[in-house]
């Protein structure tokens, strides 16, 4: 039996690392969001500036990430559902093999791929035009908010689908069989039997995706040339163009707030299930 002291000693390195590399900088940047470097005082000046210049970007970020999360949810339920309830063996094998690929591709690479794929005269439009479905003049660039959503969905769906499909596979099949015996359609089984049972896993996957997407800099930077843009871009810009850590910290504070709401849901979910987050 490990004593209490020994166990504290064992987890000490992890706690120290967490403290030095995560909690300390987090606290510091939260605090320094309220620091006014110019006049040397404390106050809300950074927030006032952040809202004056970037309120549209904050809203844009919220909409993009929420929309992406919703689409990821729908797609991962569809993929997981087909893997659990599908009957065509070939389709199952192909889907199972294909859907995980984007997991292994970093965001920056995905952004670069999409940059050439979604451009006005990019690969996607070229393919559509060459099949005769569209005139070359109708081709439009997707390198705006749609590009960001497409990249996020493409990159994060496999992650959630992997979790959801795993949870679905470990369900007690007898409930599904019972519903099928009673003549329920597959769609009805999916939404009334399967999804409610994996809802927690689905939520956890979506929350984690939401938080990851909030923090991505490369995708909006490389894909979205328009304004408004996402707040990560603004944070990088404040630091690189003006060495202005104050407003960057304020923007960071806002994005913490946006994820904190989500984290609260996640933790509450955990408490309800007996004190351990899924």
């Amino acid at each position, binding site marked *: 039996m490990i004593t209490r002291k020994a166990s504290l000693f064992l987890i000490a390195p992890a706690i120290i690392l967490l403290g030095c590399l995560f909690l300390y*900088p987090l606290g510091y*940047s939260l605090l*320094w969001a309220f620091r006014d470097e110019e006049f040397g005082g404390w106050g809300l000046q950074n927030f006032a500036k952040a809202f004056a210049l970037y309120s549209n970007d904050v809203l844009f970020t919220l909409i993009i990430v929420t929309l992406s999360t919703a689409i990821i949810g729908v797609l991962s339920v569809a993929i997981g559902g087909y893997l659990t309830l599908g009957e065509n063996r070939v389709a199952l094998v192909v889907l199972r093999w294909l859907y995980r690929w984007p997991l292994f591709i970093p965001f920056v690479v995905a952004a670069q791929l999409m940059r050439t794929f979604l*451009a006005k*005269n990019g690969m996607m439009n070229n393919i559509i035009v060459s099949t005769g479905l569209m005139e070359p003049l109708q081709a439009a660039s997707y390198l705006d908010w749609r590009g960001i959503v497409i990249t996020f969905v493409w990159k994060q769906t496999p992650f959630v689908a992997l979790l959801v499909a795993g949870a679905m596979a470990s369900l007690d099949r007898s409930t599904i069989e019972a519903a099928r015996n009673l003549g329920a359609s597959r769609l009805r089984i999916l939404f009334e039997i399967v999804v409610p049972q994996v809802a927690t896993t689905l939520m956890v996957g979506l929350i984690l995706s939401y938080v990851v997407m909030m923090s991505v800099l490369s995708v909006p*930077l490389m894909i979205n*040339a328009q304004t408004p843009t996402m707040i990560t871009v603004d944070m990088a810009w404040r630091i690189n*163009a003006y*060495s202005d850590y104050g407003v960057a910290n304020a923007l960071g504070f806002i994005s913490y707030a946006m994820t904190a709401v989500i984290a609260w849901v996640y933790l509450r979910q955990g408490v309800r299930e007996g004190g351990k987050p899924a």
Partner: protein
Amino acid sequence: MTSKIANLFTSAALALAIGSMAQAENVLNVASGGSQNMVDYVTDYLGPLFEEQNPGWEVNVVGTGPGNAGSQAILEKIKAQAGNETWDTDVVVMTQLKSGEMVTEGLLQKYVGDIETGKLATRDTSKSALGTDVEGYVMPMFHSQTAIAYNPDLVSNPPASFDELKTWTAENKGAFGYNGIKNGMSGVAFTAAWMYAYAGNTDQLMNGPYDPELKNSWDQALNDLKAFNENVTFTPGNAGTLDMMNRGEIVMGPVWVDMFYTWQADGRLNPNLKLLLPEPGMPGQPYYYAVPAKAENAEAARKFIALATSPEVQAEGIVKRFNWYPGIDAQHVESALDQETWNKLFTDVTPEDLAAKGKPFPLGPFFDDIREAYEQKVSN
């Protein structure tokens, strides 16, 4: 705090890179606050040349990334060891803005008078960096310049001034593309050029004195720019503009001249594309070689910079291999270069154009005001 953590990591990275080279007899540590090609320039060309001429020396170069952010990392690293006897960085390559700050903070040493090539650089940029007096502290590594690239197959009569450009974009909606101000310096340069053309007080913007009230007179210029933006396509970055020209999505846009020629030389860009410098001109900038005040190997650093700014190296390395404009005065380089290469560099933009229409970036504080005014009034 984020800055301190970032510094910590930068310093750790620099220390690791430098530490790994420690086994060589004498190591000259060069920190370059530029893009990858500027690091390649030292690793592939200048470093080996120096090592060949100075047996027993090894050149170790670390890149900290492009723009003022990269130079800021060097500045912070040097500041962090300010209390030490000697500093472990011997040569720094930095942007104008940050070199000026380093001179002001006393972090650099005067060396230009001590090296032979010192008198070869007499352009105003070797004396003043965005309003800060840097004479004696810096030697320009190269000058780079922004210009408008266009496709002559599709634009037979390209606009020769910003006024003509305005009319042209109104007639050809979406055919002109630039990258705004958050996606790279070519878009920032275009915006600065717009302000030079329309905001008035052009000389003051470039040479000072700084007046915080001046930005209140920019509304008209910024509103016009907002209207202009309605007719253009936004591109994702400096490379993004060239990519979009390649794919025929836009036919005109501001680019860095060196990047343009390098891409063309590598076969990555339509060889027919051409450059022009519209009236009243567009900004360019040098990168500087400088020596930190307490550099451990200051003597070798001087030798290194003397080599780097010699006409032969400027001709072969800077102009021929990397398509930059020379850092030292052009006439010293011309004689060391074959006529063909020389002509290639000046085909579209002549030396006269460059002298008349190659502008510096605005004075530091004006530059901040311009970017912030753009955020407030153009993109918001």
